[in-house]
Each structure stands twice: as C-alpha cells, then as structure tokens.
C-alpha cells in the first residue's frame, strides 16, 4: 500500500520550532527567543544613546540572511550585496522608528525586501504581469506527473539538480520568489511574512501555494528536458 505522508513528516526544525519545547536543562525555545530579543533591545538602546559601534553586534547574526533574501529576489550577486548594504544603512538611519512589538529580524527583512523591490524597478526587469494580483487569482493546474518518482529523493542530492532548482527559482515571478524566500528559505511564519510583505495572512497562503506549485512545475520541466533523449542529427 502506498505510503501516506503525515504532516509531521514535513516538519523541519527551522520552520517548526515549538515555543514550548525544552531544548536543554530547564529552559525552552521560548526562553531562548526572549533572551535574544532582550539582548537586541539592549543593543538598540546603546546605539540610540550614541554607541554606534554596537550596530555591528546587532546586525552580525543577520548578514547572511539579508544577503540571501536580496539575492533570491534580485538573482545578481553584486546587486544583492549593494542592496544588503543599503538595507543595513537604512536600518541604522531609521532605528528609532523600530517598534519593539515586532522582531528586529522581521523589521530588517522588510527593509531588505523593499530595497530589493526598488532595485528591481530601477532595472525595469519586472513585467507588469508578474505584479498583477490577477496572477494569483487565475486558475492554475499543476503539471501531472505519471509517478511521484519523477522527482526521486536521491536525485535531489545531485549538484546538477540543485542548479536546476536555482534556475527554477530565478524563473519565478518576483512576488513568488519573495514568498518562497521568506517562508521556505528563511523559515519565517505566515504572520511574519505577511508583516514583511504588507499582505493579509490569507493572501500569503494563497501566494505561497501558487509559488510552490509553479516552482515545482518549473523544476519538473527542467528535469524532463535534461533527461529527454536527444534527436538524432543527420
């Protein structure tokens, strides 16, 4: 009988940290988050009182995440680095406006996404179609696979397959790349992603569904074209 996948099977540590889970001797993940948040707020207080060098300590844990987010949206390393630098600078300049009910990381990623969007607009690489809300409302039928083994787990380990995945992500419309980056790469929650993108949680879910299915289909197309036998040439 065919295996039925339980949602528990899909649990990844990053995306599914349960706030009540005990991770060590007498403290929980919630304690770790609270402690981290407290340390960040103390750093912010120091920066705002004139100790600007503390800004380096505040942002050090997020350098990679900010760069990755910018890169996934822009797909050009040099642009992603510039946008990351701009995002950190903007975060410094507007630090006083940071409302402390949000996580610093969420606020920082919102700045990053906005900076990356502005860069894309400057480059004029975004078609109006990819930004249209109708894009998400349109009916979409996923490519039918004859068998799930068309994307076998073992194949996912191969370098070339990883490259095909990168190409597939690059081929997604901008708004789909954003949501995949936030939810599936950075492991943010629906609520955090909604805050960053300025969307309702319902819209985040709809967009994520479309993005995941389209990404899968782009990936399948590339896998198929790679494995399709070449026609004989005269």
């Amino acid at each position, binding site marked *: 009988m065919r295996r039925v996948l339980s949602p528990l099977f899909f649990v990844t540590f990053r995306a599914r940290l349960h706030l009540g889970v005990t991770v060590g001797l007498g403290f929980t993940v919630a304690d770790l988050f609270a402690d981290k948040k407290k340390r960040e707020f103390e750093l912010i207080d120091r920066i705002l009182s004139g100790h600007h*060098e503390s800004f380096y300590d505040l942002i050090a844990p997020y350098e990679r995440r900010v760069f990755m987010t910018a890169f996934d949206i822009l797909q050009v390393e040099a642009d992603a*680095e510039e946008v990351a630098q701009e995002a950190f*600078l903007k975060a410094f300049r507007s630090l006083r406006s940071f409302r402390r009910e949000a996580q610093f990381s969420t606020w920082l990623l919102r700045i990053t996404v906005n900076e990356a969007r502005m860069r894309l607009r400057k480059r004029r690489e975004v078609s109006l179609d990819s930004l249209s809300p109708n894009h998400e409302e349109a009916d979409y039928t996923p490519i*039918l696979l004859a068998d799930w083994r068309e994307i076998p787990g073992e194949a996912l380990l191969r370098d070339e397959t990883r490259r095909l*995945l990168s190409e597939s992500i690059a081929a997604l419309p901008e708004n789909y790349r954003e949501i995949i980056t936030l939810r599936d790469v950075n492991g943010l929650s629906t609520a955090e992603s909604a805050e960053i993108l300025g969307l309702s949680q319902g819209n985040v879910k709809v967009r994520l569904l479309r993005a995941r299915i389209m990404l*899968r289909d782009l*990936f399948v197309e590339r896998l198929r074209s790679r494995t399709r036998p070449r026609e004989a040439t005269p």
Partner: protein
Amino acid sequence: MKLDCNHIWRELSNYLDGEISPDIRRDIEAHVAQCRHCAALLDSTHNVIVLIADERRLELPVGFSARLREKLQRELATLRPD
C-alpha cells in the same frame, strides 16, 4: 467528506505546513491513497520544499562582511539614527 483533486491542490500548502484540521487531513490522505496524480503532486512539491530549505545555502561573497563594515563605518561616523 469526499474531496476531489481541486480540493487537494487548494489545500496543498496548508497540508505540507501542518496547518490543517485533523478532519481535512484525514480526507486528504484518503484521497491521496487512491489518486496517483495527487500523490505525485504532494510528494514532489514536498521534495522541492525540502531541497530549498536544506540546499539553498549560498555562501556570502568573499569579503562581504569587511566591505559592509567599511561602508557602515563611513556612514556611522556622520549619521545619527532617527
């Protein structure tokens, strides 16, 4: 409730994220056990998500942190946070 393939597609993300009621989950699994296409859709989408999460580990460009610090140093010396 008996679900059709369209229901499965609509609930795909919620199912994969575990954000779904036990009743709907049971209905989906009953459908998937009988439908090869939906089984393929669930499994392959799941595989792609796992691959993204586990393998999208780009390294920072060489010198990224140093260049960032250099740029920040110039600006932080003159700027004040608003």
